[in-house]
């Protein structure tokens, strides 16, 4: 029945005074009893806030630790670095700095095959030649103590401890490095400048600059890193150096970096990771928000009689609303405050979880900003999610005190409701944008959450429709009763579906993305792909090296010549003039213009490449267009599509290369996209054969040797016969990357666990809040003569139907989300993994049924009358 009272009368604007004091006192009094029932939701807010606070605090801890240790992490106050030996102009600058009292120390790092003659094992290691004095800051811990100062003795090296275990040697044994055999004088146990990833990829051998030169490792075109470390404590002086020599550094391809800048970029890297983790934490918190909304919805329904009485006694809509809003805020405050405590405790755990990924020892300190933000965000999420169900308070008419079943007519348009939804949307958007690594990703995250929420809610609506439409009218009575509970008045179908489905969605997506990432990594190194990369091969060594390979792979080994080149001009304009182009859209990016290119020449398109535009030498057309460029007499070149964009060039433009002083003009006739993730020799620029053959070059070779023993034999033989050639065994790289990734996965799983736990808590809460209704119903059934087993079957049927469909809806969405995320964000092909999905489904459904039955155990244990009494209170 609905009210048809007329509404045309002119109203006097007099209103009931707002009584915030009363509202607050009432809230406090009500909270003694009422909040206990929905208190379980506090836990879901607690988990979300805990995750956020721990991540925020950890980010702060990390940034602070890195900044505090900036000089120690670099071992100096500033550093010059480049891929070539510093030229005479840079040497002049260094001399003048030295004269002005600055400390100057060079470090040269190259990769080289090292052999341990005593055990015959061989590996590709980093070899570092170091000037005395380095590092200027921090203490190097060695075994024996103090060895760092003496390792510069000719004929001696210090090694990372991993070298000893990998080679099976000990201090005092010797290593063959290039043309020299050197004695291991000790180990470097802790070099404060180490960043975790460096040592994970390859342990190092430390020696003096003179020893490194004597070993003759660095030949033509060898990959080596030349660094000069500077001790200039005065910040102003460092700034002055940058101002004065910036141009010289740029033209000399030397990068000048201060310790603070390095620290900043390190913390930016971890900040990015931290922000991804924060999104996982935020998902847990938002799940808590959904829980709060669902709890308040039921709570307000239960409080309907009390609200009606309050209205009869003269409480205005505003006062009644405020009383219940305060309770939601109180709930948020309790949840957020306990979340902060949890977060601070977890903050201590984060460095342990992420140990091995972090470059520094992270010291923890309670961060006022993180604690404040966690508290604020927790309360805000609780309130903003509670707001929509709280608006029901206004709709409770005082007449409901006289007629409990009285329902006022629904508002056609409710600006406050619209406002509450808008506020909720805006809050979720801003939170996501605030927490995400960048605004776009945050908005995308918020959008996908909104789509997921809407989709799951519509599954709930659909579920009610379908069960009503296709009601199992032939099933036994308990089953019919259980299923009809899904669409009875005041059912919980949508809120439970939302809680369950959303939880399943978050967990399902995380599991799938993580699984796909792991599989992709395995595939990259998997069957059929090369697993041994040999580089720095001189042309005359090629045949000799081939003869070292097992017979069956000799024919299949692929070689690519590498010709180091620089850009001399583009369309006839020199780099200096190109750089000064005032139009940023036409000005090539400096890095692309300046860098030393390692070009190759070959007749075919590589495995990791796709011809996108133009035509290949043999006339094959690109996938997007097959425009044919007439190169005339000039040699043709194919550019990688991104570097072409950075250079602001396209088909038909000419690039003149400087190859060891000779100028070679080329015309761009095709553009390629390259999958750099594939471990193949890939190139920015490929010239057609017949141009560079006589230029100075070295060669890269890839081969696949299945047998690990045979792979090891090849590497050993190489060190003896061709000490300048390096070999990279991909299986070792995979181990190293796996070690680092497993740490990252551990952290993601750790925080993903929060979402899972929050989902379970929301589920328990959703069922607990509707417990009273179920109890009342069950007690009535028992009064009418239902047996325990029948009541049990009613509950079982309801929970089973609810759990299965809600979880399935969340998981189907998770599959869709993963299928979208994989190719678009992670650039990996998506394949469905049914087993983890089915496992999650089974676990959540069991959990739902179990939770439901456990929360109703009172009903089965106690006689009906006390239950009815309790339910009517």
């Amino acid at each position, binding site marked *: 029945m609905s*009210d048809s009272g007329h509404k045309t009368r002119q109203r006097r604007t007099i*209103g009931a005074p707002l009584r915030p004091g009363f509202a607050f006192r009432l809230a406090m009094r009500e909270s003694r009893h009422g909040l206990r029932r929905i208190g379980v939701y506090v836990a879901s807010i607690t988990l979300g806030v805990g995750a956020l606070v721990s991540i925020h605090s950890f980010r702060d801890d990390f940034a602070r630790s890195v900044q505090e240790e900036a000089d120690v992490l670099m071992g100096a106050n500033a550093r010059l670095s480049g891929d070539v030996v510093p030229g005479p102009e840079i040497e002049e600058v260094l001399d003048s700095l030295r004269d002005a009292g600055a400390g100057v120390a060079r470090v040269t790092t190259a990769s080289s095959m090292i052999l341990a003659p005593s055990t015959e094992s061989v590996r590709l290691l980093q070899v570092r030649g170091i000037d005395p004095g380095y590092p200027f800051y921090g203490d190097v811990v060695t075994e024996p103590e103090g060895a760092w100062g003496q390792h510069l003795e000719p004929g001696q090296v210090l090694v990372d401890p991993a070298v000893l275990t990998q080679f099976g040697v000990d201090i005092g044994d010797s290593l063959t490095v290039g043309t020299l055999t050197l004695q291991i004088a000790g180990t470097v146990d802790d070099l404060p400048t180490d960043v975790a990833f460096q040592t994970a990829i390859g342990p190092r051998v430390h020696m003096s600059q003179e020893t490194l030169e004597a070993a003759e490792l660095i030949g033509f075109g060898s990959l080596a890193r030349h660094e000069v470390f500077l001790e200039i404590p005065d910040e102003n002086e460092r700034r002055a150096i940058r101002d004065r020599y910036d141009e010289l550094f740029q033209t000399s391809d030397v990068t000048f970096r201060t310790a603070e800048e390095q620290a900043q970029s390190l913390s930016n890297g971890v900040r990015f990771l931290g922000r991804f983790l924060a999104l996982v934490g935020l998902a847990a918190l938002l799940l808590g928000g959904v829980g709060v909304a669902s709890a308040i919805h039921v709570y307000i329904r239960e409080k309907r009689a009390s609200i009606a009485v309050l209205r009869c006694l003269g409480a205005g809509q505003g006062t009644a609303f405020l009383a219940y809003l305060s309770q939601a805020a109180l709930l948020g405050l309790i949840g957020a405050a306990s979340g902060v405590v949890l977060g601070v405790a977890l903050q201590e755990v984060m460095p342990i979880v992420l140990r091995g990924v972090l470059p520094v020892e992270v010291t923890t300190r309670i961060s006022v900003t993180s604690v404040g933000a966690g508290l604020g965000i927790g309360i805000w999420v609780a309130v903003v999610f509670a707001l929509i169900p709280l608006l029901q308070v206004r709709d409770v008419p005082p007449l409901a005190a*006289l007629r409990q079943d009285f329902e006022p007519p629904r508002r056609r348009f409710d600006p406050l409701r619209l406002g509450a939804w808008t506020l909720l949307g805006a809050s979720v958007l801003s939170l996501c944008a605030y927490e995400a690594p960048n605004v776009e990703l945050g908005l995308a995250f918020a959008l996908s959450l909104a789509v997921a929420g809407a989709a799951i809610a519509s599954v709930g609506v659909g579920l009610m429709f379908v069960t009503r439409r296709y009601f199992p009218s032939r099933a036994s009575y308990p089953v019919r009763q259980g299923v009809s509970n899904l669409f009875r008045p005041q059912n919980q179908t949508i809120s439970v579906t939302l809680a369950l489905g959303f939880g399943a969605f978050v967990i399902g997506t995380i599991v799938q993305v993580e699984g796909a990432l792991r599989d992709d990594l395995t595939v990259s190194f998997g069957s059929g792909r090369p697993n041994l990369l040999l580089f720095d091969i001189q042309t005359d060594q090629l045949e000799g090296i081939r003869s070292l390979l097992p017979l069956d792979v000799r024919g299949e080994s692929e070689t690519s010549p590498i010709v180091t080149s620089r850009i001399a001009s583009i369309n006839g304009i020199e780099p200096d003039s190109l750089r000064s182009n005032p139009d940023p859209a036409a000005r090539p990016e400096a890095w692309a213009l300046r860098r030393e290119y390692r070009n190759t020449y070959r007749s075919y398109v590589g495995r990791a490449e796709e011809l996108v535009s133009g035509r290949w030498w043999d006339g094959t057309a690109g996938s997007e267009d097959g425009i044919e460029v007439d190169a005339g007499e000039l040699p043709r070149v194919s550019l990688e599509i991104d570097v072409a964009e950075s250079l602001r060039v396209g088909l038909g433009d000419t690039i003149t290369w400087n190859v060891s002083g000779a100028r070679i003009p080329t015309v761009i006739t095709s553009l390629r996209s390259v999958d750099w993730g594939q471990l193949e020799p890939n190139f920015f620029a490929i010239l057609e054969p017949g141009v560079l053959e006589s230029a100075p070059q070295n060669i890269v070779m890839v081969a696949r040797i299945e047998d690990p023993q045979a792979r090891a034999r090849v590497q050993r033989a190489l060190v003896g016969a061709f000490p300048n050639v390096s070999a990279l065994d991909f299986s070792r790289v995979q181990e190293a990357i796996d070690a680092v990734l497993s740490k990252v996965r551990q952290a993601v799983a750790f925080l993903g666990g929060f979402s899972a736990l929050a989902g379970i808590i929301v589920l328990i809460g959703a069922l607990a809040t509707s417990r009273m209704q179920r109890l009342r119903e069950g007690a009535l059934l028992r009064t009418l003569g239902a047996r325990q087993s029948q009541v049990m079957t009613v509950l079982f049927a309801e929970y089973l139907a609810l759990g299965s469909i809600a979880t399935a809806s969340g998981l189907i969405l998770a599959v869709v989300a993963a299928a979208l995320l994989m190719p678009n964000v992670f650039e990996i092909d998506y394949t469905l993994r049914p087993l983890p999905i089915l496992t999650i489904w089974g676990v959540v459904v069991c959990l739902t049924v179990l939770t439901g039955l456990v929360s109703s155990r009172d009903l089965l244990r106690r006689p009906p009358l006390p239950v009815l009494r309790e339910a009517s209170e």
Partner: protein
Amino acid sequence: MGESEAAEVSACGDTSGCEQAAVRAKARVERTRNVMMIVAEGLKKSYTSGGRPLPVLQSLDLSIEADSFVSIVGPSGSGKTTLLGLLAGLDEPTSGRVLLDGEDIFSFSEDGRAAFRAERVGFVFQTFHLLPTLTALENVLVPLELRGEGNEARGSAVSLLERVGLGGRLDHFPSQLSGGEQQRVALARAFSNRPKILFADEPTGNLDHETGASIVEMLEHLNQEANTTLVLVTHDLALAERADRILTLGGGRVVEDRPGEGSG
């Protein structure tokens, strides 16, 4: 309320009759001023059910003098509760108007009517409707706190509870009280804001005969003492007879309007 007056009321409560006559006589003198506390004019109310209008009250006119005690009786579905809801401004009529203490209550917004109720109206319900999460004392304090009277009101709330015999149960929650005790708390709450009009909806409907009788006695005494206009909806004809005037509803109209035993 002074101690002597309290004693007087208490005495009357214990020995029926006695002082009641004196108090009623005093009230009657005042009623000669002919001040109408409740006036309903052309009051209609219909609901829509199954797409068709379902009339519940049909152009009802009614006036109730200040300080009088009026019972409304009638069979189920005759519109008693609907009328009570409209007179108290808990619901809006389809047409017509209601003047309470001279104010057209439907010229106020819903919040305006709430403010009016806080100032001048009290309620007693069949199912007591105490707030289950508040103690007896806190329940009585609610109307006072809604008027902005905080701590200073506590004394009068305590004294009201003492007068209904619950001085020792101030901190008990409704679930710890019997039905009769809960209704006594509800009475104390109804009078706590010193209302001009008190609406009672089947106040004894959920109580046994004996407890119901004691509640009615209490209600009458508190009412007379506070000079409140009492409108009582009931099925219980014996209870209805205690009023000054009995209105019988049938088919959405007043079909009988006669004096009750209280008028004599």
